[in-house]
């Protein structure tokens, strides 16, 4: 499971790695269900993050109409 402090990009990278394991040579059926559950939980977390993220818009106080 991903750490909460991870950025979205890190979580997506982690998900990509988890999914890639299923196509890799290390694949083992015994581990597959646990890895699938981890991937599913991470996907839910990413979706939640994506849906809840808001942009922080800050209009600079600096004026540009003359040399300061």
């Amino acid at each position: 499971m991903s750490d909460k402090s991870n950025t979205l990009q890190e979580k997506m990278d982690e998900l990509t790695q988890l999914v890639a394991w299923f196509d890799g040579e290390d694949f083992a059926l015994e581990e597959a269900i646990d890895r699938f559950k981890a991937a599913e939980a991470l996907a839910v977390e990413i979706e939640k993050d994506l849906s809840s993220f808001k942009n922080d818009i800050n209009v600079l106080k600096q004026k540009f109409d003359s040399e300061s």
Partner: protein
Amino acid sequence: MENVLLSVSDFVALTNQTLEYAYPNVGIEGEVSEFKVSQGKWVYFKLKDDESVVDCFMTLWQLRVPIEDGMKVIVQGTPKLTKWGRFSLTVRTIKPSGEGAIKKSFEMLREKLDKEGLFNPERKRTLPRIPQSIAVISSTEAAGYKDFIKIVNDRWGGLAISVAHVQVQGESAPDQMIRAFKYINEQEVLPEVIVLIRGGGSADDLSAFNDEQLVRAIAASRVPTLVGVGHEQDESLADMAADVRAATPSNAAQLLVPDRQDIIRSVRAQTNSLLPLIGRVIEQAAGQVDDILGRALVRIDDRIGLLQDRLRNQRSVLSQLNPETVLARGYALIRGAPTIGKLIEIETTNTIVEVEVKDVRQK
């Protein structure tokens, strides 16, 4: 003033004061002639029409677009009487007037900046796939800015957006945008992208984006730049100098951030593909087990058949060894010692006969 006696210098100063009061900023349209740059700093030319001509003066720094003789221009400036008694116009801004002159000036500047390599493809930097902090240079009141912010908010979240509010058209627009670029590039913590946007407008409205100094500021930016100005068909020199050109402000938002719905769909598709994959692996494993068991059963059948064959053979051999079988072929079984005068027993298939030995000969 009739009884006032002025020195020449006072007269010139008073005249200039009067002119400045009467014409603080006069706009004049005319044709350029005798254009020249002196000492790499001062620009002199004449502005004329069919009947009149006026001398003009400005600094090279204020000349933001290429000008040449014969070009129709609009100048903004203040009339002035010089201390040598010559009347001239001190020009603050000059811009081409009319489609032909605007196009000509645009092409001249494009050629000049292109020769300097400002538009070279190898200078272009790529934008981060998912930026976390960006700076936007635009007018917060402009429709293009509002479109951009709406689409960015729809598509993505978690982005720190710093907005430098500037004029995006008019005389002071280029300088304001240049100051904003300078300010952002001088920050201790730089954004990952600077986005310069403005919605559609007339060629004159968009002319600020063909300002030489602004184009140079874009090209010199330490931070990668994304420029989305006007509509799809509008092409400005600012676009060409940018690392990435967007067709419109909305397109700039699309190029800047991915669509969260696309990512959600992709994430779902990735995880949804895993269970069928596990199912297929289980099916393959079960198939392999079936194959192995099938092969084992065939081997067992083969071994049983082999053993049965051997058993049949042995039984056949055994049956040949059975004394009854020998008797059935007409042979007899003799019990007792072949000694003359002794009785021996002869057994055939159907009878047992006791006989006395009369003679014994060696073969």
